[in-house]
């Protein structure tokens, strides 16, 4: 185990040295679950009338689910999406849910919202970085939104109040999401001092100043404390971090 870790560190160090940039790595530690993942039945199911039991997806590890709701990024200017190959993310509307429910895109990216359900859906956002209303549209139709400003955008459906998703628009392309075990890696960060942000969908922002030196990977671990009452509403408005940090 130790040996393997060492090997990984060595390999990444070599890679970093070769490219002239280093990675930021670390572990997200969450010890308590904060939210319940909800499961909805397929829409088509109801059209015929069999009984569908709604409940939790018990197969998923609740802590791994919490870790999946974390996004890490570096504040401040950096290479944006359009400067690189502009990646396009997709948020489906299926079974009366947004899928995936958390998307991370660098600023300037375009997100497409295809409707996969046999009923109308509507997508709107009231978040500051980008407020929009795509209106209601039918199955098979796709509508797109480009996010020119960084920030956290919560999207909803007028027709289905329980539908929600979050799009995190990062100020640069240095972002990462932890894997199931909580390990993350932001690759190819040039040496310098940065503010590393860990954002949890329920728990909010956690910041750390980190120094990246050439040839060395920096390590930053985050212990995300659990708040009993997630500040869901606060998140949309309270978003001074990336935007202000950018300027």
């Amino acid at each position, binding site marked *: 185990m130790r040996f393997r870790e060492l090997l990984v560190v060595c390999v990444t160090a070599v890679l970093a040295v070769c490219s002239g940039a280093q990675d930021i790595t670390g572990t997200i530690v969450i010890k308590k679950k904060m939210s319940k993942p909800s499961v909805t039945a397929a*829409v088509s199911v*109801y*059209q*015929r*009338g*069999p*009984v569908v039991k709604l409940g939790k997806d018990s197969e998923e590890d609740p802590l791994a689910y919490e870790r999946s709701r974390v996004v890490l990024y570096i504040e401040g200017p950096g290479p944006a999406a359009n400067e690189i190959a502009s990646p396009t993310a997709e948020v489906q509307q299926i079974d*009366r849910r947004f899928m995936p429910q958390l998307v991370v895109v660098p600023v300037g990216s375009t997100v497409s919202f295809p409707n996969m359900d*046999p*009923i*109308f859906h*509507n997508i709107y956002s009231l978040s500051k970085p980008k407020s929009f209303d795509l209106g*209601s549209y*039918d*199955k098979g139709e796709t509508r797109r939104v480009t996010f020119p400003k960084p920030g956290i955008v919560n999207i909803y459906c*007028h*027709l*289905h*109040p329980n539908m929600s998703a979050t799009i995190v628009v990062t100020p640069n392309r240095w972002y990462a999401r932890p894997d199931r075990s909580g390990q993350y890696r932001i690759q190819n960060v040039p040496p310098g001092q940065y503010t590393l942000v860990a954002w949890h969908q329920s728990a909010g922002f956690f910041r750390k100043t980190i120094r990246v030196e050439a040839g060395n990977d920096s390590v930053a671990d985050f212990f995300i404390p659990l708040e009993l009452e997630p500040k869901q509403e606060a998140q949309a408005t309270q978003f001074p971090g990336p935007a202000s940090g950018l300027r």
Partner: protein
Amino acid sequence: LITRFRTRAFLICFIPFALLLASSFWMIQRFVQSTVRDGLHTSLRESQVAIASIHSKGDLQNSRFLRVAGENSALKAGMQLLLANPGNETARRTVEDQLRELGEHMGFDFMLVSAPDGSPVAGVVRHAAAQTEKHGQLIPLDLSLVDRNRAGFLLLGGRTFQVASVPVDENDENIGLLSVGEYFDFSDLTTHVALVRNGRVIDSNIPDVPFNELERELDSCNGPSECDLLLKGTRWISLPMEHYGGGFVLLSFENVDEATAPTQSKLHKLFLALSFVCVLVAFVCSVGSSGSIVKPIAAVVSHLRNAVRTGKLSELEVQHSSILEIQELAEIYNCAAVSVRAAGENLEAAYLEFVGSLANALDARDRYTAGHSSRVSQLSCATASAMGLGLEEVERIRIGALLHDIGKIGIADNVLQKSGRLTDQEFAIVKQHPVIGRRILEAVQGFAPFLSAVELHHENWDGTGYPRGQVGEETPIDARIIHVSDAYDAMTTDRSYRRGMTHEKAISILTENAGTQFDPRIVHAFVALPIEILTKQSQTPSTRDEVEQPAVTVAI
């Protein structure tokens, strides 16, 4: 109609008794029945009030629910979507999906969205197969089934839903109407109810009563108050419980017979037992009283019957009866009996006097035979008594003997009073006296028993007598006895032409002629008579010296 006094008394006693009992029991039963019914009415009314208050609470809650549901922004968005895309399948499906979710959350069995013009545009209803399950599925509703003028209730494929509606407004503009409904189910009601619309029964939970029969019965009572019905032979009370809109009325029913049955059967048993006992007592009392009423009268009747049979009007024993009327009756009867008896005695006395006067008349005609009749009478009586004849017969013989020579009245004086031997012609005239006597007496009804004694007292045992020449016992015993006594008296009595024989001589002549002239049995009895009687009789006669023909001659 002739009935026995006892029967009459019994009926007069028993019938009013029984009628009184029956009517009083009937009235008590009616009273109890009406009391039970009143109780039932009260309980019905109370339950109605209770249900109404619960219902109004439920209405309030429903209206709150509804207001919340009407303000649902997602639903509004869906309805706007539907208005914007009329006829769009997906839009309808979207709203149906919303309604389903809303309905599942709020527990409605029926949800419908209508356009502002009232036409239904999307709806869900609980799956028919699952209507009894708590968590049955809401499925899309076939809108063609929905009645546009729904009010209060909605009928869907044989199911009834109680429906309430709320308008949905967006920015002060009406965008449609939301109707929610619950399956109207009687199954959890413990009372019997029926849902009626304009006289037509839509649903009822009264077992085994077809709707049309219920309708027919309900036809007769269209009032706001309770109403009595007869369903399948049992009596029910129906009471309107709740008036919904659109002519829908919920009626509650209560089975009167069932409710009163336990009390009724108890009362029935009690009354039956009581009435049976009472009627039995009444019967016994009636029988006893009728018996006791009739008993003194029966005693009187049996006494009278006995009196009729014996012919003697004996007096009633008054002190035996405790009843005043019976005592009075007995007293009156006794008076009557006394007077009747007195009258009878008077009559008899008069009759005897008459007989005596006839005999006297005869004696007045023929001085020689004076006292003859009475002597013959006494002798005949003594003989008859000695032979063991009854009192009546003896009496008859006595009078018969007194009258036996009455016919001599009709014989001419020159013949009858002739001193000396009679010629054959004269004797033939004398021999007519029995027939003449009979003819005289025949005219008087009371002398009928003595006719034979008068007519036949000269018949001989061997048939040589006159007027008929009868043999032996053809001649009645009266005549035979008188014949012997007459002969003896004639022989022992002095006559103008001879002296009377001695007793011994006369007896010997009688004995000699026993079997020829006289009945030997009577002669036997006669000669056995105490000497005093015979001689006294023979000495008593007057000492007249006229001598009649000897007995033998008389006998001829």
